[in-house]
Structure formats: C-alpha cells, structure tokens
C-alpha cells in the first residue's frame, strides 16, 4: 500500500525527541506492531517514511503528518489503535488514510502558546500587527531580508494570570514562519520562556489539510 498518511500528536516528554530520532522511533513502532513498512531497494535499504513538516525540539503538536508505504495491505481504520500500543510516551497515532494530496499542500498552521517573562500581550499584538516585519537571515548567497508580515495571518496575544496566551496562524511552508522565529524577531523584548503547540493544519486557501 503506497501513499499513506498518518496523523499523530507529539506532546509531553516526546517534544524533546528530535526529527531524526522520531523517524527512527516511528520505524521501530511499526516494527514492534508487526506492520511492515515498505523499504527502498539497494545496498542500504531504508523505510519509505517522511514527516511532512518537522517540529522544532520543544514544540508540541496535535497535528503531525507522516507519509509512509506498507509492504502489505492493512485495515487503515484500525491502524492507529494497533500502533498506539507500541508508542513511547507522548506520541499518539490519530488517523491513518490514503493521502489525498501532496505534503506540500500543507501551507498554514494554527498554533497556541504561552509566553512568560517579557512584555505584555498588547505589545506583542501590536508588534505583529505591523504592515511589514523585516527579518534578516542567512541564505545561500549571503544575507537576505524577508518580510514575514504577510505570513502572519493571525497573532493575538492576551494577558492571563499564567502569562501571555498566544493564538497564531502562520504560513508553514514556502515561506516558513515558525513561532520560534517570531520570538527571535522580538529580540530583547522577547519572553524568557515560551512554549507552543501546533493545533491544526490548512491548505493555501485555509481549507483543512488532510
């Protein structure tokens, strides 16, 4: 079975598992569950899996997507439950299905977060409401300046007793704006602590990504 997609969550202690380690971990989960992944041919066969949009270490997610292929037919509806019996703490398979399109169709992410030890909510909201937010970054040919404002569809920050609560909708691929980048842009006005969770993924036209 080719072109399959697994939606999963990665929270709790699992947020510290890096992308490469997650790939290895997922292969072992399939292997323990007795669900054979399809392998590539050649001298160094590797499992055909790819994670659509790797997470930054420390950020949680309720909407991760992994594309994979199986060496034999399986009931996809029952697959999440089968896999979950073999997952490490913090990773849960939510849904398995035939991928309706390419991973590149994932364009927007909705996130929530909490910020502590910096400015108040109004400051952040105003900052990201600017019509242009220029960011310098190292590209292949020297420094490049990008405007991230068009990639920030929503950036709402509210003061709460537990710090500043953030609601974000960000462009996730081509170009990519991550919450970590937004925090970096704030410089000295940024919080001393922050934590974000991906909630939902969308296509370019803001219809749900699957």
């Amino acid at each position, binding site marked *: 079975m080719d072109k399959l997609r697994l939606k999963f969550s990665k929270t*709790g*202690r*699992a947020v*510290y*598992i*890096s992308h*490469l*380690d*997650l790939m*290895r*971990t997922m*292969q*072992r*989960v*399939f*292997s*323990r569950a*007795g669900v054979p992944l399809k*392998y590539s041919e050649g*001298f*160094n*066969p590797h499992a055909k899996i790819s994670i659509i949009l790797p997470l930054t*270490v*420390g950020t949680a997610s309720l909407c991760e997507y992994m594309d994979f292929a199986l060496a034999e037919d399986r009931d996809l509806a029952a697959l999440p439950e089968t896999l979950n019996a*073999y*997952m*490490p*703490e*913090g990773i849960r398979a939510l849904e398995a299905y035939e991928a309706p399109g390419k991973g590149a169709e994932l364009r927007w992410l909705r996130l929530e977060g909490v910020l*502590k030890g910096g400015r108040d909510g109004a400051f952040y909201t105003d900052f990201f409401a600017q019509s242009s937010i220029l960011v310098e970054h190292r590209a292949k040919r020297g420094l490049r300046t990008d405007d991230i404002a068009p990639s920030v569809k929503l950036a709402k920050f509210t003061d709460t007793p537990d710090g500043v609560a953030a609601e974000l909708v960000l462009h996730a691929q081509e170009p990519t704006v991550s919450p970590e980048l937004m925090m970096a842009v704030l410089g000295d006005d940024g919080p*001393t*602590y922050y*934590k974000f969770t991906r909630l939902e993924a969308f296509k370019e036209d803001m219809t749900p990504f699957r």
Partner: protein
Amino acid sequence: MNEKIDALLRQVQRPARYVGGEYNQIVKDKDQVDVRVAFCFPDTYEIGMSNLGLKILYGIMNDMPGVWCERVFAPWGDMADKLRQEHIPLWALESGDPLGDFDVIAVSIGYEMAYTTVLDMLDLGGVPLRAADRPGLKHLVMAGGGCMCNIEPMADFFDLCFLGEGEDVDREVLELYRTAKMEGWDKPRFLRSASSIEGVYVPSLYDVAYNADGTVASVAAKDGAPEKVRKRIVEDFDGCYYPTAPVVPSTEIVHDRVSLEVFRGCIRGCRFCQAGHTNRPVRSRSAETLLRLGKETLENTGYQELNLSSLSTSDYRELGELCDGLLDYCRPRGVSLSLPSLRADNFSMDIMQRVQQVRKSGLTFAPEAGTQRLRDVINKNVTEEDLLNSCRIAFEGGWNNVKLYFMLGLPTETDEDVLGIAELAKKVFWTWKQHAANKSRGVRITVSTSEFIPKPHTPFQWEEQVSREEYLRRVGLLTDALSKAKSITYNWHDAEMSLVEAALARGDRRMGAVIETVWRNGGRLESWSEYFDLDRWLEAFPACGLDIDFYATRERPIGELLPWEHMDCAVSRRHLERERRRAYEGVLTPDCRAGCSGCGAASLLKEGVCRG
C-alpha cells in the same frame, strides 16, 4: 516537566536523553513501592543505555514486587553546569524525582575513569559523597560491575559492593534492605548482616594498615565480615534472566541494537586481560535458548540489528547453528546480524562471510603484539599465518578495510617487537596486493596502539607500566616505520589517560582522597578526552601525599600484599604466579578446552567441573 526544567532542556544539546518516557520503561505507583532504587550509570545516556548489565539489573529489580528501579545517567557538561546554576538536583528518568529521594543508589562501574563521575552524580543529586557522612539507611550507595575486583580507591564512598555477577546478590540485598527498613534497623546492623551474603563486600568492615614504604601491611576484617569476599556467579547461565523487553531509547545511543549475550567468561587465557580472568568459568546459553531470546527481543523492541556479544564469540561452540538460525529469522525482516571481536581463524571467517553477505563493513583483528615471541609471552594464541590467512579470505571476499589493534609497553617488549607491528601491517598489505578481488577500490589498513595497563587479578598484576616518555618513544619508532606505507594509517591513543587508569586500577584506599580532590577541581566524565585533564591528577596525588608512579609504573615484588587480595575472583594467586613465570619463559598455556590449567574458577561450580 515543569517550566524551569523545560526552559533548561531547550538550552542543552540532545534533551531527549534527560527526560525518559521511552518505550518499555517501567513506571510503578509510588504508593505500592517500599524500596526505591536509582540505578546510576556514571557516563552519558548514550553510553549507559548501551550497557547490557544495566538492562539486566533494571529488569531483575523491577520484577521484584514492591521494588521500583529507575535510571540515572551523568549529564553532559552543558546540562551539569545548568543544573548547578539553577540548583536543580539530578533526577531519575522515570519519575523525575531527585536522586536524594531514593532508598538505594546502585552504581555500575566498568571503567576506572568513571570514578570522578560517580562523585559528581552523587553531588548533583544532593547525596553526601562519603559513606561515613550518610549515617542512616536512606540513600544507601551500593556498587557493582567490573571494577569491583579492586574497588579500594572508592572504598570511602560506597556502603556496599557486589563482587561478580549481580543477578542473585542484588535481589538478596534488596530483600534484606526491605526487612531492615521495615524493622527500623540502623545502618551498621544492616551492613553487618549484608556482609554475610556471599559476594557482598562492605568496605567499612575492613581495616587496612600500611608499611612505612607505602605498601599494604594488612587488611583485617571485623564484625564477622569474611576474610575474603568471594565473587558470585550465575551457574545456570542458560536458564538465567535475560531482558527481552529492554527500554528502547527514543534518541540514538552508541550500541542501538539488541545485544545477545552468548556466554560469559573466556576460554582463552590472554595474560593481560582482566575480563578473561575475572569472569571465569565459561558458561554458555544453548543456541536454542539464544534463538528464542533473540526473536523475542527483536519483536519487543523493533530493533533492526542484533549483535552477538561475549568476550570471544568465535569460541561459542554452536556459533554456526546459531548464526544460521538467526539469519533465517533476520534476513526476511531486514534485520542485520553483527559479530564483534572474531578471532583470526578459518572458522570465524566462514561465519563472517555467511553473515555479511550484503554489506562489507570493516574487519577488526587484535593480534595485540607484533612478533610471535611477544604474542607467546601474552598467551595470545594467534599466529601470523592465521592472521594473514584470514586477511586473504577477507580480501578475496571483497573486504578492503582491516583494522589491527596492538598494545605497546607489554612486559618484555623490545624495539624489535615494536617494529614487528609495522612488518605485520605491511604483510597484510602484500596479502591484499596478491589476493584482492577488486584492487581498484584500494585498501585501508588501520593500525591502532594503546598503552598496556597492568590490571589486578591477571598474571601481569605485578608488572610495571612503561613511562609515558617511553611509550611515546615506541610510538615514534612505529610512526617512522610506517611513514612510507601509504595504505596504512597509524592511530595511537595518548598515554595520559593510561597513566591515571593504571594508578586507579591498582590503587589502595588512600587514593579516595585523590579522586575526591580531582573531582573538586572539576574532574568529571573523564573517560571523554574533552573532559580529561592529566594535570588535575598530577597535582592531586602530591596534594594528598601520594605518588602516582608508586601506583602506576612500579613493579610489585611477588611477596607484596596487594590491596585487592581480599577480593576472591576464584582464579588463584598460585595460577596467576605460574602464568607470569610461563610468560617470562615464553610458554603458551592452552585454552580451557584444550586442557584445564587448574586456575581455580571451577570451584565456583557445584560439581567443581568446568565445561568450557
């Protein structure tokens, strides 16, 4: 994870190693547990999680109702600094509770260079370093592992040590601890009682006196402790516990695979080898048992690689059958089989070819010495013919990468022996030229040398270690001799660490002060070259009134009472002395199967007969 720790984890390298939560970890209800054990491994997660001993004892202790054993590893430097800055105590991975909360802290030590790390972990966990500063039963510090055959340098820090294999004795001591805790015994009573369990060494129950020249005058047992502590073994190794559902790390570790222990002990009597002498007698698992355990572990872990481990896997009697059986299972599932440390003989090469049909990784041989004369002195029963023949088979079979390991500074070594290493490496190269299946790919021959370190409980325990200067001179000789050989790479390990390792290996109790001083001056994770600093040791020895050369380089007279003679590893002093004489005569001692040399280890078995 609370915010403080979460914030900290984002600032360090590879945070996944500090959080636990891996598949197969054991979590118990604290209210249902009466003995909590923190299994401390004095090295990084990546090294510690690769250790089979940890997996075995973690499984055994957690199989005991009412006992919960958790894992603790040494944090890398960035993390250790942050823990100290933020005053966060080192925690156990499963519960996240600080080390100081535990009833028992069990330390596993297989390498002398880990000693300072043990102190660092106790300190990071908020546990007093010295046994004398821990008056109660709470956080009792016990130690086990290969270093226990001379743990005198750490005697002041440990309440109790295990000599030999831990499978049975760990359980017995934990049961006793539970009783002591329930009935409110004081620590001296518990320790006295524990010292009567075979294999248990309570350092505080031994008084050591010294002669004016610094040598040990006497070791006196008190309060009913045995004069000699006899090591424990698992007699029925085939039926012995094996962890078929070990914790599967979520981050990459050094040996990220199933490690199947085929046998314990070694039939070879290489005279420099401590493990070969302290792990006797040989006890094996049947191929049938190993196949079952291997399949079960692969299924439970999802690992894609299985390794056969032992001190000398070529000597496993059923190796052919075992490999065939495992390959039948592994091949269709894409699981690879790896065989370490094979001997240079035809049988091993045949197995190697069967196992590695697809990928041709490098082949490693350890002739240890460059001439037949010196190989006979150390009782390494490998001839040049064996080695070259194995290389020929390898080159014909398509391998083009051979590593050769040697020691420099072995007893009786001359410059001729040193140059013999270069000669041997060149002969390996000529063998490739004559027999390579495909010369266009070139060949890589790597020669590595390390300095010989005399170790307790070996026939060479009395030997001197050559000075660093002399080692470096011999390295220079070899470098020159190999300088024109383009296909041969020469790597040598620096002798700085070997000097400290030699001193610690044959040290006595007074060295505890040196270890503590080095730790106070920043020594930790010293088996890592990033963190090792010879000067710290060279300063600490005189500061504690001791001389490093007295321990490292001095040859001991046969009549001297050695600091570790109250540790009985079952191989007799008589045997070691005889082996030393034979070494100087250049006489080989046959392996255990070819003829029993009466080393004494068979006395550990009920019937008194060793089956090799």
